C-alpha cells in the first residue's frame, strides 16, 4: 500500500493537541487486517478504555504504541511528535532506532502476564529501568522505587522475587516498575485478565488511585466493564479492526447506538 506522507503533519502543535494520535493507521498480519485506517485521539490526562471482542485489534493498538508492533501505514503521534516516523528534509520517513528510543521513553506499559523480571526482587525490578536506562544513581533510583512500591502497597515485599508473589502483587509491582520511568502515557493491557477474581480489586484500586492523583494519559484494554465504566473519561468499542462506537461511559454503556455494541454489551453482561 502506498501512503502519501505529505498529508500527515510533521508535528502536532497547539494547546488542544492530543497526547496520542493514531492517524489512518493500518496493521496487517499477512492477509489479515487487524486495524483498518484507525483514527484515534487521546487528550493529555485523559483515560481512554478500549473494549471489544477478542480479535478486534484492541491489544494491537497498545502494542503499536509501545513499538512492540510495526505499523503498515499511517502515523502515530505521541506528545506532539511522530512516534513511528521522523522528519527528514521536511518530510516524514520511517523512524530509526534512535528516534524510537527517544519517543519510547514517554510511554510505559503493563502487561496481562506482568512480565516481571524473575531474577530480580520487586525493588530490583523497579530500579532496573531508572538505573540502566535513565542513568540514575542507585540511591536515587531506590528512593523512587520505594516510593512507588509504597504507593502500590508493595513496600513490604520489596525484597521478594516475583516467584514468591501472587498475581495481584506481581501486577502491582509491574505498575510501579512502569511508573518508575516517569512516562507521560501509561498503557494497561488486560492487566486483570490473568488474575484470580478476589485479587482484581488490588490492581484496579491502584489504577483508580493513578487516575485520581496523577496527570497521566492512560489507555486501557479491559474486559472489566464495571471498572471501565467507573474510571474512564471515554470508552471505545472496537470491532473488526476499527472503532465501531465511542463516547462517555454513560453514553456507551447506557445507550449504545450501534447494533454491534448492543450485542457485545448484552453478551458480556449475560456472561457476568
Amino acid at each position, binding site marked *: 500500500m502506498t501512503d502519501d506522507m505529505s498529508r500527515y503533519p510533521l508535528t502536532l502543535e497547539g494547546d488542544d493537541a492530543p497526547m496520542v494520535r493514531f492517524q489512518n493507521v493500518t496493521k496487517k498480519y499477512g492477509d489479515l487486517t487487524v486495524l483498518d485506517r484507525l483514527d484515534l485521539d487521546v487528550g493529555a490526562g485523559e483515560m481512554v478504555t478500549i473494549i471489544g471482542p477478542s480479535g478486534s485489534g484492541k491489544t494491537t493498538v497498545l502494542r503499536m504504541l*509501545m*513499538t*512492540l508492533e510495526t505499523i503498515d501505514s499511517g502515523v502515530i503521534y505521541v506528545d506532539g511528535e511522530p512516534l513511528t516516523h521522523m522528519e527528514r528534509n521536511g518530510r516524514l520517513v520511517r523512524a530509526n532506532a534512535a528516534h524510537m*528510543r527517544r519517543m*519510547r*521513553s514517554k*510511554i*510505559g*506499559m503493563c*502487561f496481562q*502476564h506482568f*512480565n*516481571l*523480571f*524473575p*531474577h530480580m*526482587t520487586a525493588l530490583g525490578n523497579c530500579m*532496573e*529501568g531508572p538505573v*540502566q*536506562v535513565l542513568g540514575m544513581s542507585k540511591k536515587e533510583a531506590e528512593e523512587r522505587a520505594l516510593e512507588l512500591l509504597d504507593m502500590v502497597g508493595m513496600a513490604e515485599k520489596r525484597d*521478594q*522475587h*516475583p*516467584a*514468591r508473589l501472587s498475581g495481584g502483587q506481581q501486577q502491582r509491582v*509491574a505498575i510501579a*516498575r*512502569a511508573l518508575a*520511568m516517569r512516562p507521560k502515557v501509561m498503557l494497561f493491557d488486560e492487566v486483570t485478565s490473568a488474575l484470580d477474581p478476589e485479587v482484581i480489586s488490588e490492581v484496579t484500586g491502584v489504577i483508580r488511585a493513578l487516575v485520581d492523583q496523577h496527570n497521566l494519559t492512560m489507555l486501557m484494554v479491559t474486559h472489566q466493564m464495571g471498572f471501565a465504566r467507573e474510571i474512564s473519561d471515554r470508552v471505545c468499542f472496537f470491532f473488526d479492526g476499527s472503532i465501531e462506537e465511542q463516547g462517555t461511559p454513560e453514553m456507551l454503556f447506557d445507550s449504545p447506538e450501534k447494533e454491534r455494541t448492543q450485542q457485545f454489551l448484552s453478551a458480556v453482561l449475560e456472561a457476568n
Partner: protein
Amino acid sequence: MSYLDFLAAHSDRLISGTLITLAQFVLAALVAVAAALISGLMKLAPLKPVRGVATVYIEIFRGTSLLVQLYWIFFALPLFGISLDKFTAGFVTVGLCYGAYGGELVRGAVVSVPKGQWEAALALNMSPLRRMWRIILPQALVGMLPPWGNLMVEILKGTALVALISVTDLMFETRQINNNTFLSAQAFGSALIIYYVFARFMVTPLMRWLERVMARKIGRA
C-alpha cells in the same frame, strides 16, 4: 611391586600430569564458554552474514573429530603462518570444539526465555545490548546450566587428546610411565581413577552448586 609402591615411584609424574590436565581443563572451559556465548548469540543476529559465520564455525567444529582438529591447529596452521605452542593449541582446540556444542545450548536457552521478557525490557526502553545482558542472558543461563554440566565433563575428558600433540598432561605422563615400566594396568588404571574423581567429585559438584546458586538468584529455590 604393590600398587602403593607404584604410586610412590611415579607420583611426581602423575601429579604434574594432573596439574597440566587441570590447567588444560580450566582454560579449555573458558574458551568454550566464550566461544559458545559468541557463536550462540551470533546465531540469533538479525544479519544473515553474522549468522552464517556462526553456523560455519559450529558445523566445522561439531562435525569433525577433535583429534583431527588438534592435528590441524597444531601441525597444519603453521603452514599458513599461525603457530601456536602445543599447550595453547591444546586448550584452544578443545575449547573451540566443545564451544560449538555450547553455542547451540546458548542459542536454545536464549530462544526459550519467554517473549514477554523481551517486551517488558523494551517497554522500559532498554537498548538491545542491555536487554540481552541484563534480562535475557541471566534467565537463559539458569535454563542451560544442567546441559553445561554434561559439557564440562566432556571437556575434561576431551583434554586427554592433547597428549597426542605432546602436551604433558595426565594422559601423556601415564603413557610415559607405561612405556618405561610396562605396568599398563597400574598406569592406565591410575589415570582412569584420577579422571573419574576429577569429573565426579569436582566438576559435577561445582556445576550443581552453580545451578543451586542461580536458582536461588532467580527466586526459584
